[in-house]
């Protein structure tokens, strides 16, 4: 087993003084490469907060975070931006896609922003990913015209564009019906098996959680199981 990332004693406090809310209270967690894990816990437990920290979009108040042997706490914004681009994919619950761009343009974004333009090679890969997500007939669709389930599949394709080591998904199926949700999860499972991409998926849905090989319970700001 190769350790992909490890966090120790993560503390996250929002606000200061009277208004200070301590959300993470010394949380430690290790993810191995190729894992498919569900992040569970009651609302307000700190799941989104943890995913945001793991995604390097926010720094914890204290604690250590190492990923691929990089110290993610010490790195500056520029280094983290590059790191995210190369190694981490995101799927959010809302506001996932750039509304003024087509499905394909959204998918190739992570590569295009790195290379400074949309290369034919990037387009080819983007197209392949969309086909794989069952969106062969939606490739050049404006994303505004896609259904919720289709949007989330485009988002998954985009998260996979730069072949990341880790995909963080915060309630990716939260506003989808059961059929669409299971379709998205099937695709995620397939990618995980075939490419060894690590997934960490927060969810309130037992069925989704059961779909994952590992379940991580968060309560009161620590991992409880």
């Amino acid at each position, binding site marked *: 087993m190769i350790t992909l990332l490890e966090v120790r004693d993560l503390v996250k406090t929002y606000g200061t003084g009277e208004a200070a809310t301590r959300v993470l209270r010394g949380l430690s967690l290790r993810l191995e490469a190729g894992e498919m894990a569900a992040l569970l816990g009651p609302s307000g437990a700190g799941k*989104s907060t943890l995913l*945001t920290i793991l*995604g390097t*979009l*926010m720094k914890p108040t204290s604690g250590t975070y190492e990923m691929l042997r990089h110290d993610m706490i010490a790195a500056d*914004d*520029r280094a983290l*931006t*590059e790191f*995210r*681009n*190369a190694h981490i994919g*995101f799927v*959010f619950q*809302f*506001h*996932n*896609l*750039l*509304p*003024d*761009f087509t499905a394909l343009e959204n998918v190739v*974004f*992570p590569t*295009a*922003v*790195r*290379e*400074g*333009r*949309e290369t034919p090679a990037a387009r080819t890969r983007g197209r392949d990913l969309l086909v794989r997500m069952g969106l062969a007939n939606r490739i050049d669709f404006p994303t505004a015209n896609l259904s919720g389930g289709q949007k989330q599949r485009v988002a998954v394709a*985009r998260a996979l564009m*730069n072949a990341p080591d880790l995909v963080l998904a915060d309630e990716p199926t939260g506003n989808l019906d059961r059929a669409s949700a299971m379709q998205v999860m099937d695709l995620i499972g397939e990618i995980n098996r075939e490419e060894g991409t690590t997934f960490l998926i927060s969810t309130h849905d037992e069925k989704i959680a059961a779909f994952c090989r590992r379940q991580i319970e968060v309560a009161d700001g620590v991992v409880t199981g």
Partner: protein
Amino acid sequence: MLYALKIAIRYLTANKAQTALLVTGVAVGVFIFIFMSALIGGLAEFILSRTVGDISHITIEAEDRDPAVLIDVPGHVLTVTERGRTRTATLAEAETWLPLIEAVPGVRAVSPQITGAGFLTRGAQVSQVSVTGVEPGRESAILDLDGYIVEGTARLGSGLIVLGRDLADDLALSLGQTVRLQSSGGVTALLTLSGIFETGNGAMDGARAFVSLPVARTLYSMPQGVTRIEIKLDDLNAADATALRIRSLTGLDAVPWTDGAEQLMEALNAQAQTGYFLKSFALITIVIGVASALMLSTYRRRPEIGIMRAMGAGRNFVVFVFVTQGALIGLLGGILGAALGYLALLPFPPRDAFEPGTLPMDITQGSYGLAITLTVIGAILASILPARAASRVDPVTAIGQ
């Protein structure tokens, strides 16, 4: 950064109505800028052509001979200028200077002259005149004598004289008749009226006589040299610099028209300042308009900016996307405004044909390039603040909204 450009263009085209409105707003500002430039420039042109169009732009006059100094009691100096002396002061080596002055860049015409006072007598009528002897062929070099001729011709020659309308009327003189001219030096010549001019300027039309330079030589007993050299320039605004140049080149006391025209210059200056003021306001309006529109767009696109940042777009990339939008808006609005300004100025008469009573718009002074350049720079500056705000969007709160 081709990719940032693509995104900027997409953002602008995604909201066509808003972009069109914004570009139109910028274009209106540019239009005002150009209209003001053409008006202020045309007005200055108009005023200058009215006031100094017919005068010498640089004048070299013979220096007075030192007045005789009479020593009285020690400590007191009395000076006396003998009568008749000033007039005989000459630019003796004028001939040698002329080619040199003509070769100075920006000099359009040079007119060596002998000037003096005299009396015109015809029968019992006597009129005082100021006589100007000019070289035949250069009659219209400074004053457009040819253009003011109402009868006969401006062409001067031996035995010929050209007078103003009022003066000719005073003397009841008509074309082809002779008149006696007595110079202040006492020399008399019998001259034939060969042309009558009318400038509309009373002092000119009622008291000026033009003769050829050889005639003036005889009248003022000046076998060589001249009393005055008048110089016309291509650009009358270059008078100060060119006068300086001629002075250092020849050592002669070349005086630009601006000497003694302080009031006019002040008025023109004030007018130009007003123009700058209004043009600055047009630019400021553009900057504020672009800044506020982009600020709004930044705010509206916060979630997207957050997504882009999460996907690995750097801060500079985000800055570039928004600054490029500003630059494009400035460029489009600038070009549109400049084109509209040009079209709006087309119906106005050209600068050579300004008519009193209409706005003297000078289409050539629209400063189109400057307007577009300043607008693009202004729009870029205006977009810096929104762009920086956009680059500082926190992905977490933006996406979490």
